């Protein structure tokens, strides 16, 4: 173990000398911020609850506007203003004093609503979503009055609550993203580290020292795979500082460690079998993309497992999945060991 630790320290020293690990952390932070920005940005144009009070009212007109106004008045975040004629409403729309115009008319036992929204405005999306929600409530009310004609009765809705739209995103996207990025990067480090030694011919130099090939590979795996849980721990700490409660941190880190060992092992295997860095990196990233992309379609996939652990909804199946990752990691490691024993280091040339 001593030699392996020395070799692992050598790897880490090179990484810190190049300051690449700082760049790696910066990249991960940027990706997390970027995805959050996208979601926060999207949600703020989507979420009907935001900045409701300050917005202009919605103009309502037409011969069925009384019913519609009644429903609209009950909607939080949406003010309605009645107009006697369409022309009057349109004037205010052109002046920008109403956000949208709803023309509502009774015809053949139904109500026909024409909604007019402004083109090419940042707020249009928000307005359209709010109008949709209001009209769905209106539809429910109208359905309620026609229950006698329906075979099935619609279920009563649970009460509307103030709930952060970011909650689900934090646990199902952000946490898995932050925990898996270090794993992918570690695998890439393992590939680079091995192919580089082979290409530069420095593997020969290390081998002059009294260490075996498997100790060299072990040292590289130790360094690369060890980095992932360490980074994951930093992210979990930052999340809890930010007020996001993450359940079962120990199991989460164990999952990350197992996946990191499996992925770095896979990277090392690819690098040994195909030592040209171009093809090795290509095969590695293709493999990771396919594995993780494909796995999201399977029950017990890593992203979902991490989400369930973090949000504290884990089941027996979740724990079984974690066990399966550990088993897979051990399996990959054993496989790499056997591969290293079979490979003749003299033949490792590009």
């Amino acid at each position, binding site marked *: 173990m001593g030699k392996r630790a020395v070799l692992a320290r050598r790897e880490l020293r090179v990484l810190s000398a190049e300051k690449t690990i700082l760049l790696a952390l910066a990249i991960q932070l940027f990706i997390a911020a970027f995805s959050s920005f996208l979601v926060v940005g999207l949600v703020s144009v989507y979420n009907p609850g935001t900045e409701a009070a300050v917005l202009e009212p919605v103009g309502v007109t037409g011969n069925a506007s009384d019913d519609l106004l009644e429903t609209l008045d009950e909607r939080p975040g949406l003010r309605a203003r009645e107009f006697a004629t369409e022309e009057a409403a349109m004037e205010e729309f052109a002046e920008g004093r109403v956000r949208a115009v709803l023309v509502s008319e009774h015809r053949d036992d139904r109500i*026909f609503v024409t909604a007019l929204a402004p083109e090419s405005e940042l707020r249009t999306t928000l307005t359209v979503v709010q109008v949709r929600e209001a009209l769905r409530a209106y539809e429910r009310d109208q359905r309620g009055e026609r229950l006698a004609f329906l075979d099935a009765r619609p*279920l009563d*809705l649970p009460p509307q609550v103030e709930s952060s739209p970011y909650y689900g995103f934090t646990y199902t*996207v952000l946490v898995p993203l932050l925990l898996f990025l270090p794993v992918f990067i570690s695998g890439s480090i393992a590939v680079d580290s091995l192919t580089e030694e082979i290409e530069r011919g420095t593997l020969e130099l290390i081998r002059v020292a009294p260490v075996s090939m498997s100790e060299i590979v072990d040292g590289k795996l130790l360094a690369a795979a060890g980095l992932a849980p360490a980074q994951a721990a930093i992210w979990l700490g930052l999340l809890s500082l930010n007020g996001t409660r993450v359940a079962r941190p120990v199991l989460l880190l164990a999952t990350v460690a197992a996946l990191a060992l499996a992925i770095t092992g896979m990277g090392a295997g690819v690098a040994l079998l195909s030592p040209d860095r171009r093809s090795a990196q290509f095969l590695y990233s293709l493999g990771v993309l396919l594995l993780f992309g*494909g796995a999201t379609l399977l029950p017990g996939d890593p*992203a*979902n497992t991490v989400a369930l652990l973090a949000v504290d909804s884990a089941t027996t199946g979740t724990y079984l999945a974690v066990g399966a990752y550990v088993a897979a990691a051990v399996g990959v490691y054993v496989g790499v060991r056997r591969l290293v024993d079979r490979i003749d280091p003299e033949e490792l040339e590009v």
Partner: protein
Amino acid sequence: MTRREGNEDPDSRSDPNADRDPGSAADAGSDTDHDHDGDRGDRSPVRSGRLARAVAGLRRLPGVVRIRAGAVARITRWEVTRGVGSVDRRTAVLGVVALLLASSVAFVAAASGGVALDTGVYRVGVPQDSPYREPIDETPSLVARPPSGELGEEIDVRVTADGFAAADARKGQAALSALRNAVRRHNDRVMGTEDNRTAAFPVLVRLRYADRADPTLPSRGTNGSDGGFAAAGGGADGAGGAGGAGSDGPLPVPNVGGGGAGFFGQEATGSPANIRPPFPFASLVLAFLFLVPMNFVIQAYGSTILNERVNRRGQLLLVAPIQPGDIVAGKTLPYLAAMIAVTAAIALAVGGGVVAVAAVVPLSLLFLASTFVGAMFARSFKELTFVTVAVSTFLTTYAFVPAVFTDVTPIALISPLTLVVRDLKDVPIEPLQYAFSTGPVYLCAGVLFLLGAGVYREEDMFTQRPVPLKFLDALDARLSGRWSVAFVSALSIPFVFVAEALALATLFALPIGVSLPAMLVLIAAIEELAKSLHVYAGYANARFGTGIRTALVLGSLSGLGFFVGEKATAVAQLVGLQNVEPLGRATFATAGIGVVEAAGLLIAPLALHAVTAGLSALGARKGSRWYLTGLVAAVAVHTAYNAAVVVALG
């Protein structure tokens, strides 16, 4: 093809080796060490000799082009055969195994029906016979549990005969909200099976978009007041049936290029649940698809460039009678061709047209150019990996963030991806819009290739230095006299434009009290950095004398070059970017663009650029710490000026 042509002209003027006879370039590798000094010594005095040489060069041009095209083609062939050669039998087998693995995973997944990311996140305690059981079972994010479970521990929401109880935590609220959506969806689906359509869907909605300046009455649409709704009845019937896969699903299946798409999304009709907000979600996802393969290609491309630098392998090529620019072009072409081929294939698959491909080409070039520069700077494969990831993260952001606002504001046009999104929605694109979107990207890619090719020489390729120092070296390699400072300043304009446009796209959605000051400071910082970095690089490589007068002259020249280059950004006016009130106006007005009424304001930016660049140059002559001080001072002055201009313009 474009790449090669782009390489001919700028190279032969700015590359120190380029205006030699191709035949004598054989010794380029051995004497480049003296190039700096030699060039500086003999260039500036012999002005008239330059002209004669240029004329002679012009006369030789056809022959030179033929020879160089031949060299580029030879390197390309070599690169391709070597690339294919490195894919030995073992690699090919591994690739096939990976594909088999993937397809088997996909097969199993398809058989099991697929699992969403949020499967089973919220636990709902509900009796077996409750009518709410069905909507819960239909929704992946909800999982049914016995109602006896402890609230907050084993379940998040409890459904009882008389109502709902949620755990007293954010999770409970989120679960209740998810349940509400599930029940609503379920109701719509049940209603879809009703025979009495009038009672099941009593409200029909038609959504229209109108220009505020020129609205038409809602009831008088193009189809006449009844025609619009005649189809709507059918729409509502369809709505009920398709409710399950429809509006509220976790991720709607992309439905692209549906007929009748106007610029601002479809005119929806039907049940209120059918209204889709005008957000080009599906097109965005597909546009993102174009970016994915680039990450693979640049990995291979970065490897092949760095490979030349490992163990001095590239030395042989360097001493061969070939221009460095041709080597770079030859090594780049196959990868560019691969990217274009993949892009065309994707466009074919998702229904994009020629415009989509033409919009992705500049992005491909920029990906390759940044990777090339990164591979010229990186010390090891590990470092290259991080540089590559950083490059693709940044470029993806640049391409993606503005495209999100495709339907909302002209700012979106700064990203070529916006063109793709529009093309996928069958919106026509004007040539001017294409030029505006892709112009800066083409220019950035060109400048980056120029920067990297400048250090494609022995003393830079085979030395190990930290990336920032390599970057300074590359900037320095572009300098050859005082006037070149102005030239490099002008070259930085596309980057400044891209950076400012990205800042604009990121900030414009924020409240103006935050975004305007932030924008003013950002503009100042970006521009000052662009004007001073190469000056500092020159000082760091002891290219200029450290006198105060020299510094002031350099600063003025840098400011002048920047000022002239900045006028090119007037193209922003053509697509109406400065009309994005008030941020866009602040961005471009401070550069004197869109301001015609005050003649003084045309001269003012020149004076400002010269003064602030002088400040940073004064700092740069005394080392890194003083450079930072000078830069901060320059940014402060520039910000104050920007604020004054914005206030003056009201």
